């Protein structure tokens, strides 16, 4: 039982990372119907920026928040300069642009920082935290906490601020949004900024476990895809719930199903994507999209 609980919490910890990245994917998908394949690499690059700031002697939380700000501005700039010129192109063309971005971020990170793995610090204590017999990693708990705080902030932002309302309106009905005076293009850019910010949180939180290298987020991104597919690409809540479920399932299957172990864990994510797409393509919380052709 103790092991089970520990594995669940550790699954929730990685799940919170998947949730953050899945939420980033869903936000952009909701607003533009585009799946941003570069989301993970943008997160990886933001994590390198954080590493540079720490390396230059900045205190941890200072570097953390500075990175979030840089990631936000970077996300906005990418939308304005790279996505905007192709925004009226077919979806497939835009998706390919995001794949191009993936390659660029990966190569530039390799070029600037070299491919060698770098240790990344955790702001949380090294000693595990004990509740009676059960032992939890302090970083795991901290990671869950940080992600939940970020999610809460974003929920409050979308639910209660005029800007959040305008962003939701612009994502849902761009034509009507223009007719009430909303600058839809800027709302999309802000969406990219926020998505980049979630990615940065995910990257910085996962780096202490994985070590920092240019391919760090490739695996995480697959799990985030699984999470978004499971929860439904059209549902932010679904992305978060999906992320947590994928994290826990991945961990429990790895622990209890003998032949899978740590090596085949990855396959679980892919199998999950296929099962969801076959059984319920809209995901747990998504709505099915009907298009007239």
């Amino acid at each position, binding site marked *: 039982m103790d092991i089970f609980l520990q594995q669940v919490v550790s699954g929730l910890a990685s799940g919170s990372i998947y949730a953050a990245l899945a939420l980033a994917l869903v936000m952009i998908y909701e607003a533009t119907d585009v799946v941003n394949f570069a989301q993970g690499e943008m997160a990886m690059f933001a994590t390198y920026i954080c590493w540079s700031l720490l390396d230059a002697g900045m205190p941890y939380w200072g570097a953390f928040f500075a990175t979030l700000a840089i990631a936000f501005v970077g996300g906005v700039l990418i939308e304005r300069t790279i996505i905007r010129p192709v925004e009226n192109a077919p979806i497939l063309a835009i998706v390919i642009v995001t794949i191009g971005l993936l390659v660029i971020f990966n190569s530039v990170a390799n070029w600037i920082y070299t491919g060698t793995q770098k240790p990344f610090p955790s702001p949380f204590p090294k000693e595990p935290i004990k509740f009676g017999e059960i032992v939890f990693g302090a970083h795991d708990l901290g990671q869950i906490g940080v992600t939940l705080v970020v999610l809460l902030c974003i929920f409050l932002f979308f639910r209660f601020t*005029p800007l959040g*309302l305008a962003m939701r309106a612009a994502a849902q*009905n761009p034509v009507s949004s*223009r*007719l009430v*005076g909303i600058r*839809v293009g800027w709302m999309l850019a802000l969406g990219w900024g926020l998505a980049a910010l979630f990615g940065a949180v995910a990257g910085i939180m996962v780096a202490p476990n994985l070590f920092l290298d240019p391919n760090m987020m490739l695996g995480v991104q697959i799990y985030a895809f699984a999470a978004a597919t499971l929860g439904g690409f059209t549902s932010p809540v679904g992305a978060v719930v999906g992320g947590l479920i994928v994290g826990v399932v991945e961990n429990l299957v790895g622990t209890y199903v003998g032949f899978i172990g740590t090596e085949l864990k990855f396959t679980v994510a892919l199998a999950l994507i296929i099962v969801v797409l076959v059984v319920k393509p809209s995901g747990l919380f998504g709505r099915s999209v009907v298009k007239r052709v």
Partner: protein
Amino acid sequence: MSSLLEVEGLEAYYGRVKALHGVNFSIQEGGITTILGANGAGKTTTLRAISRMVRTAGSIRFGGSSIDALATEDVVRLGVAHAPEGRGTFTHLTVEENLRIGCWGRKSNAGVEADFKRVYGYFPVLRERSAQTAATLSGGEQQMLAVARALMLNPRLLLLDEPSLGLAPLIVKEIFRILRAANKDSGVSILLVEQNAALALDLADHVFLLETGRVVMEGPSEVLRKDDSIRKSYLGY
């Protein structure tokens, strides 16, 4: 009275298809103007041209200055509210959020609460349903919401595209009564596009008749109502 909107030689294009062939008209500040015409005459296109939603040639002046080069968002910010064809409801948002989003283009937030009171006074059913998602409203209620959302801009000019379409006669009557009240209360000018000519002639003080992309007749509504050809073609008696 001065002209609030002056349209001169307006042409509009969908791709390479020309939908308006040099439309000229102007509307007075504080008045209610209607554009009558058959299907495909260019009524909706005229409204879309004013809101800068289609490619145009010619000149459109609002409040004395040209709006030809502006984006839709900027025309709205000048005080032109457009309740579009199909009502443009934000179906996932609540009724109240739909109205709040209508305030986005306002010059100042002073008076927002008073305007909420005013439009809820016009449409009590929207107050009852303020926390419901707009998708759950009936067609008539969604049309009321579209008018209410447009009024939340506190506009100088209200563009209305077929507010009677697909609605029960009693509801249409109610909406038209409120349009008259809104025009009286706040002095908002109204440009109404309507297929229901009898209703439109009752409400409006000035009428333009549009046929295949051109204005073919215009005048005060009491004069045009008595015109034989209008009576036969549009009023049907």
